[in-house]
Structure formats: structure tokens, C-alpha cells
């Protein structure tokens, strides 16, 4: 593994079992994540985009072992040593937790309403860094200050803060142990536009100060564009296109990526958009379509697309696309 790669997943898979009957027999599984591989380099931000149900949230949770993967490896570069997170036992996992943290989507439900924010932020410091007493209190107050909150409010409860402030508390909790990688699961979806801007700016500031890498999971392409250096597009559990931001956004090669980008309403009334409107809706992950999973909605589908799963090809340096056809002519 290259030295500048912080995290790499190899064929990460996560299936959820569906079982019925008194004896809970497994009858099928949901292919939430099916063979996902990507890498995050140190000091850069990585974005994972896709619509609901594509599995991006599951990827985020699995990387941090809140869910256990069904298969594949999650390789973390711990000071030159490569550790497979997927294979760790509970004790070693605890040690790794101080290197990777997560910020959740909904700030309202990710904070325990019955605990003060001081308790919430102190928790990782207590458990993972073993801090106590004065040192702990000072650390908590400093963290609050770092994220732009008033340290005097440490004894307040989450419900007394606004949505943006709660998200800052979540961020404070995540950076408390100074992790190397922070996974942000839709951190600004529930916020207003102006608050979103404040939070995004805060994240960039913190990154410079603490030298972390971010993994952004979002369906909001403009946020990803703003914050990330590399991006991967997911559809129904697979990555269909990945690469540098410029490549994927400006020279997207996969029909789904194209459709996704063209569907976003752009705040510019002068741009006449040629929208690719996809037919139908996302198929169920219980029984994904055969061959290329996108073929049921792809405007360029040919017979081969339903028979064979496509292999990835390299469309440019580091720009990978999973499609049978290279250089599709998009009308």
C-alpha cells in the first residue's frame, strides 16, 4: 500500500439477511454494498455520492465497524503499518477508534438528549484517551471553542441549541480524539443553506488545524464538489465511476453520473439544461438486476448490459468507470 494512502477498501461487501419464520431462516439478503473498492489519500477529502438506497451510508458505517462487513478488507495505514479493520477483534478495534471517527447526519438524534453536551464531548476523551478531572474539563472547553460555540454553554442540553450548533457539537465530539480520518455522513443535509455554509467553512478550518482527512458521504453534489478532491459515484451497492473531482464532474463517462448531474437544479436561470430524465426508479437491492445493475434505466443499454457485469476501465489517470462502452457519445 502506498505511503500516502490513509484508507483503502478492497472488495468491501455487506449483505443484510432477510429471515422469516419461527426459526428465522435466512431466505435472501439485501445486497447493500457489493464489492466496493476505493482509496483515500492522506490530507485529501474523498466524496461518496449516490441516491438513497445506493449503500453509501452503509459503506461509511462499515468502514468504522459500526456494522460488520460480510466480506472484503478495510486497510488502514497506521503509521506505515497496514491494519485490516475488518479483521480486528474488540480490543484492538477500541484502539483504532481513536484514529477514525464519524459525524452523523441528524444532529438531533445523534446527541443523547438527556446528557449535557459537556458529557457528550467528554465521552470519547474519557474512553479513548483516558482523560480525567481538570485536564478533561479544559479539553472539552477548548473543543467547544474550536468549533465556534460558547464554552459557557457546556452544561446545556442539546435541545437548547439550533440545528447548526448541534451539528457543531457532533463535529466537536468527532475531532475530540484527534482522528486521522473523519467520516461525515450527510453532515449538512438537514441544515439551511446559510448554516450549511458556516458548517462547511468550519470543517475546512478544522482540517487545516488538525490535519485530518474527510470522507464525505452525501447526495448533494454541490457540497461534494466544494469540499472534496476525489469522488466515487455509487449505484445500487456498486461504485460506477470514481476519480478526481474534475474528471468525474466535468468529464463524466458513466450514464448514471451524467444523468445525476443533469438532474440537479442549478441556480442559474439562463442555463438551458438538457436533462437526462431516467425512466423508472431504483430497483430493489434484494434482487439487483443482472449484468450491469444500471441497465434497466440506462438510455444507452444494449443486450450485453443485461447479460454481463461490466469491468472497470481506466478513462484517465485515476479515473475509473464501470461500463461496457468506453467513450459513450452522450446526446
Amino acid at each position: 500500500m502506498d505511503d500516502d494512502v490513509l484508507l483503502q477498501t478492497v472488495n468491501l461487501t455487506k449483505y443484510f439477511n432477510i429471515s422469516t419464520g419461527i426459526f428465522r431462516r435466512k431466505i435472501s439478503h439485501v445486497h447493500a454494498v457489493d464489492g466496493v473498492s476505493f482509496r483515500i489519500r492522506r490530507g485529501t477529502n474523498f466524496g461518496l455520492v449516490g441516491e438513497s438506497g445506493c449503500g453509501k451510508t452503509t459503506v461509511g458505517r462499515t468502514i468504522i465497524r459500526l456494522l460488520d462487513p460480510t466480506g472484503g478488507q478495510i486497510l488502514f495505514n497506521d503509521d506505515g503499518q497496514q491494519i485490516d479493520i475488518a479483521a480486528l477483534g474488540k480490543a484492538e478495534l477500541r484502539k483504532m477508534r481513536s484514529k477514525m471517527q464519524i459525524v452523523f447526519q441528524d444532529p438531533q438524534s445523534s446527541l443523547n438528549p438527556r446528557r449535557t453536551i459537556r458529557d457528550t464531548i467528554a465521552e470519547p476523551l474519557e474512553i479513548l484517551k483516558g482523560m480525567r478531572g481538570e485536564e478533561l474539563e479544559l479539553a472539552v472547553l477548548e473543543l467547544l471553542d474550536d468549533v465556534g460555540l460558547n464554552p459557557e454553554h457546556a452544561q446545556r442540553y442539546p435541545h437548547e441549541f439550533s440545528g447548526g450548533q448541534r451539528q457543531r457539537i457532533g463535529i466537536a465530539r468527532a475531532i475530540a480524539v484527534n482522528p486521522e480520518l473523519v467520516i461525515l455522513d450527510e453532515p449538512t443535509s438537514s441544515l439551511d443553506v446559510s448554516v450549511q455554509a458556516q458548517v462547511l467553512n468550519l470543517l475546512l478550518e478544522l482540517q487545516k488545524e488538525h490535519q485530518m482527512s474527510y470522507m464525505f458521504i452525501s447526495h448533494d453534489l454541490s457540497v461534494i464538489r466544494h469540499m472534496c478532491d476525489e469522488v466515487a459515484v455509487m449505484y445500487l451497492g456498486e461504485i460506477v465511476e470514481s476519480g478526481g473531482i474534475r474528471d468525474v464532474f466535468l468529464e463524466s463517462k458513466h450514464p448514471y453520473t451524467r444523468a445525476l448531474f443533469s438532474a440537479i437544479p442549478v441556480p442559474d436561470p439562463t442555463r438551458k439544461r438538457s436533462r437526462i430524465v431516467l425512466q423508472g426508479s431504483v430497483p430493489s437491492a434484494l434482487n439487483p438486476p443482472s449484468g450491469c445493475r444500471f441497465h434497466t434505466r440506462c438510455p444507452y443499454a444494449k443486450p450485453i448490459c443485461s447479460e454481463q457485469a461490466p469491468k472497470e476501465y481506466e478513462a484517465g489517470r485515476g479515473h475509473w468507470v464501470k461500463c461496457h462502452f468506453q467513450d459513450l457519445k452522450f446526446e
Partner: protein
Amino acid sequence: MERPVARRVRSERDLEELIARRKENFRKKVKFALAFSAIIVVFGQVYSMLGREGTLGPLDMSVWTHRIFVVCLYVLAFYIFLKIAYRYFDRIFFKYRTNTWELTWRRFRRNNAANLGLLIIITLVIVAVFAHLLAPYPDPSKTVNYDPNYALKHLEEPPSKTHILGTDRNGRDMLSVLIYGSRISLALGLSVELTASLIGIIFGSVAAYYGGWTDKLLNVINDIVMAFPFLLFVIVLVSVFRQVYFSIKLPFTDIIIFDSAKIFALWNGLFLIFVALALLNWSGVYRVVRSRILSVKEMEFVEAARAVGANDRRIIFRHILPNVLSPIIVLVTLGIASVILTEAALSYLGFGAAEGAVSWGRAIFEGREYATTSKAFLVFFPGIAIVVSILGFNSLGDGLRDAFDPRMKR
């Protein structure tokens, strides 16, 4: 309130000041709690010294007026204390930290019925605890206090100057019976509820946390308990213990570990009721605990706690349980009311407190023949006592429920 991201402007000294201030607040609260307890204890001691154990017989009027004075003083002090407490409660507990509890407290204060309920219950507790000071006549359940001659002369007297609420069938003063009877009702209610809740919490937590077969098994047990014919069970239990004598001996020894007569007589016959009620009344708590834990378990902050490395024990005790407690408090309060009622009903049927026991239900039982006659006071006064206390508990329980879970009345 929100400001753009600031540089680290606070000096070490400022932060230390903040910490010092928080310690100060904590000390204030501790002082308040100590002061409160001290007042209660002092009150109790002072009046305990002044009060005298009266003797049966034509009552010494000076002692009687003294008793009335004590009662009035208590009530007055109580109201004043409550007023001050309400005001300072806010200031001390909520000034330096606002709470999720503050909103709850505010809603509770506004609910008149709930406040009345709280008042009734606190009065009840005071009456039960200080019964020996408040009752005009000594403890009716202790036969040593009774002069049989006096008793025989004053059977079933209507209310008079010497006996404010009259006397009961055994010649005991009704007011004293009611006052001492509150002890039984309260004690039984609390003990049954606490035991039943404990069972419910343990079973509910286990079922919710482990799921699978454990959950299914406990659910089945719960269904059986819910469907169990309570009255039948109690009647059978009491009859058996009353009529059949059996004992269990440790093998090869003469040590008796289980003696049915003793069990029956324990607590004047109420021990069996306690057992029956505690064993059969935990369904409500079980269901609520289980459903709350199931829903809280899936909440994101539990996952977040796991992400920062919390182990199972920490998650259960620090994250899940505090969120589960509020509905339980409501259930327990309402449960006490139902226990009091059940005990009264059982005693009325003759299966509750035994002969000689001082309980409201027993009093109604003893006076039941006269319910429609001129001696209806024998039934009326204990009935009022029961109604008032149940009302108090129910209002408090409803008020708590509304405070914890306000519904939009709009």
C-alpha cells in the same frame, strides 16, 4: 448566538474560572438538599419531644388541643415551605444549568390537578410517618393500648366531641384508624410497586437487549401473567393458607423454613397480598421498558456512543436507561393508586387484612353491613380516605405523564 469560527481566544485562566464556577453551583445544590433534610428532621424531633403518648379513656382536652395545634402548624409550615421551595427550586436548580427537566417542571407546575395531587400525597406521607403524633388515640393495632372496658362501652359510636369521626366496630377511634391505616396503604402500595417495577425493569431490559429467544420467552411469560385471573388467584391463595396448614422442613433436620401459618400472619395477613400483587402486576412496566429500550437502542446517539468506544455496560446505564425512566415513573405512580384500590377491594371481600389489622379496606369490611343505615359513617369515612388518596395519586400520575410527554392541546 452563533459566531463565525473563532481563534483560541480564551486564556487558561478563563477556562479555569469556568470550572470553578461549576463546582460552586454543585456545592450550592448540595447545601440546599442538606438544609431541606435538616428541616424535616428537626421538625420531627421537636414535636416528637413535645408530643405525649396519650392513654385511652376520656381524653385530656389540653392534649387534644395541642394535637390540633400541631396539625395546623404542620399544614401551615408545609404550605409556606412549598411556596418558597417552588420559587427557590427554580433559581437554584435551573439558574446555572437549564435542563430537559426544566421544561417538564414548568409544565407540571401549570397543571393544577397535578399540583393538588402532589399536595395530597405529601400530606399522606406526613400523616403516615408522623401518625403517632397526629392521631388523637394510640395505635389501634396494638391491643396493649386498649382498655377493653372503654372499648366495649363505645362500640360504633357516631361522631362526637371525643371521637371526631366516631368509633368502629371494635371500639377504636375512627380517626386514629384512618391515620394509622394510611401507613398500611402507603407501605403496601410502595412496596408492591417497587417490587413489581423491579421485576418489570429487569425482565424488560433483558428481553429488549438480548432479543431472540429470550425475548420470545419473556413475552410469553408476560402474556400468561397478564391473562392470569388475579382475583381467583388471591382468593385461592388466601383460602389455602387460611385453612390448610403445612410446613416445609429442611431434609434431615428439624428446621422449618416455610411455615404457612407464620406467612399468613405476617403483616397481619397482608404479606400474601403483597406477594400476589407484586407477582402479577409487573406487566405494564415490562411492556413499557421493553418498547422504550427497543426504540432507544436504534437511536443514533447509541451508535455514536459505540463509535467513540463505549462498551455495552456503559451504553445501557448511561445512555439507554436514563431515557427509559420517565414513563416508568408515571406507571409507578398510577400503580400505587391501583394497589390501594385493590387492597381495599380484597379486604372488603374478606381476603385482605386480617382481624385486628388497621387498614382502610378492613374498616370498610367491618362496617359493610351498615352501609345503608344510620351508621353509614363506618363505611363512609374510610371510603373517603381511599378516594382522596387514589385521586391524589392519579392526578399526580396524569400530571407527570403530561409533563413528560406534552401533547399539543391545540
